[in-house]
């Protein structure tokens, strides 16, 4: 059993799994970002490979579909020279009734070195890390509403790239925060890295007041939320939440909490606009903003590969 110790760290406090950003020291986060910086140049080379994971097998276990995230992990692993096996488990063994842990035991028997896990339930990667062979590393690629640590780290990389210093920033996170693993990861990373003002912006159904316990200022007014911000992180609004008891309509949401040029003008002139993708143009963000010169949405994707390379190479180098 895990007991109370942070299960992602070994006895020397080195990262052996990446399950959540919560509980990781600032130095660990900075080390990942620094390492990612060195990998960025690999992506510009003719031969985009380094041999750090040569001979290692990385299994992408996607219990929930996500082509984009899976692809970026696949590219990152391949650039580290790993063998990558993609398992679309949503449509295979568990659909036949095999339990999650049986699936893991079977894959462990195939000598996997690393599992990249996406699951619809919060905490699933913890269960896997707890039950897989000791030499196997687990990277959380998104679990339920809980955590999406590599997205959080690539967001931090992006912010550091454009703003350098975290300790003077105002960051607004706008949208469906209560259901968002990206928002949770961003909030933990931003608080750890010393951002003094983090605003959670949205209607009370999506941004309940008790979020302030995570160290954010809760704002239910878009203008107040983005005013003088250095960074605006827009979250994707899931289709199933666009109408119902959470929100009446996508149109009303865009009017009240969508980011358009007028609202963006309230932020600092050099504010950057981020989004984890995929984007709903005209729902949470206007096309002119997505394509405008303050948008850093595409660089986020590029940095994402380097950050995932950094995470995989660091945890593979640490033993349990």
């Amino acid at each position: 059993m895990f007991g109370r110790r942070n299960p992602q760290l070994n006895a020397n406090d080195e990262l052996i799994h990446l399950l959540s950003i919560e509980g990781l020291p600032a130095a660990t986060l900075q080390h990942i970002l620094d390492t990612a910086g060195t990998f960025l140049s690999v992506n510009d080379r003719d031969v985009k490979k380094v041999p750090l994971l040569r001979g290692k097998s990385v299994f992408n276990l996607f219990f929930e579909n996500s082509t984009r995230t899976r692809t970026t992990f696949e590219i990152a692993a391949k650039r580290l020279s790993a063998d990558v096996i993609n398992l679309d488990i949503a449509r295979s063994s568990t659909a036949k009734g095999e339990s999650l842990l049986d699936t893991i035991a079977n894959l462990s028997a195939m000598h996997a070195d690393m599992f990249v896990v996406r699951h619809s339930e919060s905490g699933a990667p913890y269960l896997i890390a707890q039950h897989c062979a000791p030499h196997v590393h687990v990277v959380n690629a998104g679990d339920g509403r809980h955590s999406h640590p590599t997205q959080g780290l690539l967001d931090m990389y992006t912010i550091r790239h454009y703003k350098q210093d975290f300790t003077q920033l105002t960051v607004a996170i706008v949208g469906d925060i209560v259901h968002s693993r990206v928002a949770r990861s961003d909030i933990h990373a931003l608080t750890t890295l010393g951002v003094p003002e983090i605003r959670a912006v949205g209607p009370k159904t999506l941004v309940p007041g008790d979020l302030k316990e995570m160290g954010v200022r809760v704002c239910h007014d878009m203008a107040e939320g983005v005013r003088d911000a250095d960074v605006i992180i827009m979250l994707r609004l899931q289709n199933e939440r666009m109408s119902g008891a959470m929100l009446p309509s996508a149109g009303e949401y865009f009017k009240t909490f969508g980011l358009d040029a007028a609202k963006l003008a309230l932020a600092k002139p050099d504010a950057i606009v981020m989004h984890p993708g995929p984007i709903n143009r005209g729902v949470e963000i206007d096309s002119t903003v997505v394509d405008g010169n303050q948008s850093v949405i595409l660089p986020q994707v590029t940095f994402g590969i380097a950050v995932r390379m950094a995470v995989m190479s660091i945890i593979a180098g640490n033993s349990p």
Partner: protein
Amino acid sequence: MTRTLITNARLVDPASGRDDAGAIAIAGDRIAIVARGGGHDPRLSDFDATRTIDARGAVVVPGLVDLAARLGEPGSEHAGLLESELAAAVAGGVTSLVCPPDTDPVLDEPGLVTMLKFRARNLHLARLYPLGALTQGLKGEALTEMAELREAGCVGFSHADVAIRDTLVLHRALQYAATFGYTVWLRPNDAWLGNGVAAKGPLATRLGLSGVPVLAETIALATIFELMRDTGAHVHLCRLSSAAGIELVRAAKAEGLPLTCDASIHQLHLIDVDIGYFDSAMRLVPPLRQQRDRDAIRAALADGTIDALVSDHTPVMEDAKHLPFAEAEPGATGLELLLGAALKWGEATKLGMAKTLAAITSRPAAVLARSRGAAESNRHGLEEGAVADLCMFAADESWTVDGTTLASRSRHTPFARYEMPGRVRCTFVAGGLAFEAAG
């Protein structure tokens, strides 16, 4: 007829508050002699015992009464759960237990109740008192044949953990039960707000688990109290979880509503933070709340606002917890932990032995007696003429909880590795030795 003499005991009778050294003689299924104090009772010399037990260092107390224990039957006859779980009961000193109707099939037909009672009786372990389903199939639509079910042996009517969505149905169910004076056992949980896997709060927010707000309990309580005022129905509230809920119960009791309630050993000792890194042993219903709620439950159990402490025993098989937190089956083994959990709480609150044990003996016995509409022929206490359901335990011995060493077939408990005070030495049901610890 077996005649057992227990000597050198510490006799604790929670009903009267008496706590003295003494001896007790059992003849057949009744307590024949209770000899209190140091002096020798001449009647003991004439008692022709077939078995004598030296209880030096041990407390003798009326058998524990657990108002919430699931036994997996009907539903898992093939696994033999009824026998193992009733054995777990007596290993934990529990001699009477009430089981909710959320079995498979649901306890909504007299034949099922008769069969369950028959099978339990033949095992000669703990006494089993089933609750009948309040509505057919626990669907919350049509009422069950309550009078028939009562005749078959149901001690009350319950909707287990299934909330009744339709308030009209709940209203009529209480009206109908009140017609015959039956007690309705309800866990206050709003059908819509109550769907979550953890208590709403900072922990659930951080871990991204769906949260059940306190409102789910308080709104349900407010509804139940209004319906009680209208119908006059007797209600036993099961497993309260929140400080705010307890305040409402306190006010309702002060008002004079015919009301009793219980809380489980989990809510008495644990809080949401114990979930740690998604520990599925902590996946429980109701979910673990915050420290202020636990403090309120501990205080309310001590001052009597909460009538009884229950084990909330729910057999969960091995694999059913090896799942992500939200998918893991809720519940935990508890019958063998009820005594230790009570003693641990009693020690911490400095309540004294008799008052501590009242929460798991005389007070739940009173709730059960009222629900059964029982005459006082089955008096529960250390009195001559009372039924000889007894638990004898070493108060000074402690043990470490290890699911694999329990008599229960269900190993999962959030108390694994806890140090528990009090070790059961033997348990008598109707004067017969139903459990004796090895060694």
